[in-house]
């Protein structure tokens, strides 16, 4: 019988990363297409911590949770965690393994997949089961013009998914979850990495974009810092948060933590205003679930106009100050 294994990441402040619940709900959907395949989680954490997560697992539709607890798991370590994960995977032989595309997920996933000689599809925006029972993982291809569905010919079929790409279950899916404790074999691991310190950072911008009602995002069309200053003025006039496309970040006009898109953040505001953003698929997938989308672009043929409710063809350098004046008046 096939089964689906999810990596349960523990955050620095000892919570389960919420991406697990988004993956769990998606896994329920995949499970139905695989004759109700078991949905399991793999949890590596410090001694005693798993107890506090049990209710969350029971309420999220997990059939099994494989737990490796040890005091040496106080801080995430690639070498320890990947060794333990690989041992458990070799034991339970999942057909599918899904991992959140967080910094930890993106660190451990390729380490596991390469060690198991299998494939890994990064930053998927769609997961399905095809007619042959294979995991069909969809992500944009280079250039942002097309989506590609990627299959894997070895097991487990592995994929990473960014937080907030999928939605968690609207209500509890209660299961008779079995918790299986595994004694990790870590005595013989040569410890080559030593944890020195952790300094908590300020994540204010990231949280602001997550909860923003209106986001005004700028792209390469804003050309320079003066363009971004106009964008910020306009955002202020309507009480919006500022975001950016990958192009603007690459040009050094905006910092990477406000990047929206496949490799940045996924946002779902009430209103998303895209200024000078052409609309590559990588950007669209990060904002397409906004309630309403407005585009400002000089090129009437820009793909962004295929993904918005309303727009204006024109130069953001002229339009943004006009709009700012209207809203400040």
């Amino acid at each position: 019988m096939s089964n689906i294994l999810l990596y349960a990441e523990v955050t620095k402040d000892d919570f389960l990363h919420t991406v697990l619940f988004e993956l769990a709900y998606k896994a329920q959907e995949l499970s139905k297409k695989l004759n109700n395949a078991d949905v399991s989680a793999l949890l590596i954490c410090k001694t005693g911590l798993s107890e506090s997560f049990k209710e969350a697992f029971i309420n999220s539709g997990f059939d099994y949770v494989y737990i490796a607890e040890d005091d040496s798991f106080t801080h995430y370590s690639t070498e320890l965690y990947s060794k333990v994960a690989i041992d458990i995977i070799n034991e339970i032989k999942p057909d599918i393994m899904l991992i959140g595309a967080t910094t930890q997920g993106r660190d451990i996933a390729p380490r596991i997949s390469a060690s198991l000689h299998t494939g890994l599809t990064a930053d998927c925006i769609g997961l399905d089961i095809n007619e042959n029972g294979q995991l069909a993982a969809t992500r944009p291809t280079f250039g942002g013009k097309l989506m590609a569905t990627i299959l894997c010919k070895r097991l487990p079929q592995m994929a990473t998914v960014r937080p907030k790409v999928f939605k968690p279950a609207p209500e509890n899916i209660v299961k008779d979850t079995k918790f299986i404790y595994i004694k990790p074999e870590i005595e013989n691991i040569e410890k080559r990495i030593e944890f020195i310190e952790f300094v908590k950072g300020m994540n204010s911008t990231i949280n602001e974009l997550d909860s923003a009602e209106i986001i005004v995002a700028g792209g390469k069309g804003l050309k320079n810092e003066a363009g971004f200053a106009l964008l910020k003025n306009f955002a202020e006039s309507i009480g919006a948060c500022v975001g950016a496309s990958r192009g603007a970040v690459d040009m050094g006009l905006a910092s990477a933590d406000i990047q929206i898109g496949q490799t940045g953040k996924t946002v779902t505001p009430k209103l998303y205003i895209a200024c000078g953003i052409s609309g590559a698929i990588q950007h669209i997938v990060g904002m397409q679930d906004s309630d309403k989308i407005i585009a400002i672009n000089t090129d009437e043929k820009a793909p962004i106009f295929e993904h918005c409710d309303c727009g204006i063809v024109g130069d953001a350098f002229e339009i943004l100050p006009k709009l700012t004046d209207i809203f400040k008046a």
Partner: protein
Amino acid sequence: MKILVCIKQVPDTTDIKWTENNTIQREGVESVINPFDVYALEEAIKLKNNLENVEITALTMGPSQAVEMLKKAIAIGCDNGVLISDRKFAGADTYATGKTIAAAIKSKLSDFDLIICGQFAIDGDTAQTGPSIAAHLGIPQITYVKNLDKCDGKCIYATREIEEGFETLRVDLPALVCVLKGTYEPTRPKINGIIKAQQANITVYSMEDIGLTPDDVGIKGSPTYVSKAFRPINTRGECEICKDCDTLALKIKEFGGLNNE
């Protein structure tokens, strides 16, 4: 100390032009060193400036034109360039790419102390090749590195930038690190660097040279494959084009739930 820097040639995205059919115009688009890899080179050069006897080798897998990129790497301060190139490598996914690069390192460059990669390549964006190389070589990896520090040839300190803050780790060498983009201007080549690059001999290794078979590389050696490519469906319907800013402002008020006072 021997440092290997893995670099990738990517199309220059700041130079993307659209054709009439909304496809990317490939002709005349320049190839550049992946922006993250530029900072991988920078980190290596910084170590070379601060330590005695550091030798940097820039390494890439790609078509024969990638020789030019390796010469640029020499121009800014690398000592050697190595190109792993073979038609049979075409279509490799990150697993096969990691395996191929690791095989080249194992067979030809095994006396390295540190491998530095860029965290992402801006074309594929998978962030998988670095960890894949480390896994194939069986060496420790540190990803999302913002800063490398205090290297004594036996170990190095690396600070990672993660969601919650900054984490500092010490790793025994040999090891692989994947670095993020720095916030500083990269080094520009100096005259003597350019001369050195012009005179440099780039070593090229083929599949046989590094001891792999056709089953290990390219499409054959890749566990993943593209089953179909398609245009995404637009579910939002027709876009309403506003004639002027006043009309647009009304829409912004309506959609954004802004008060009309």
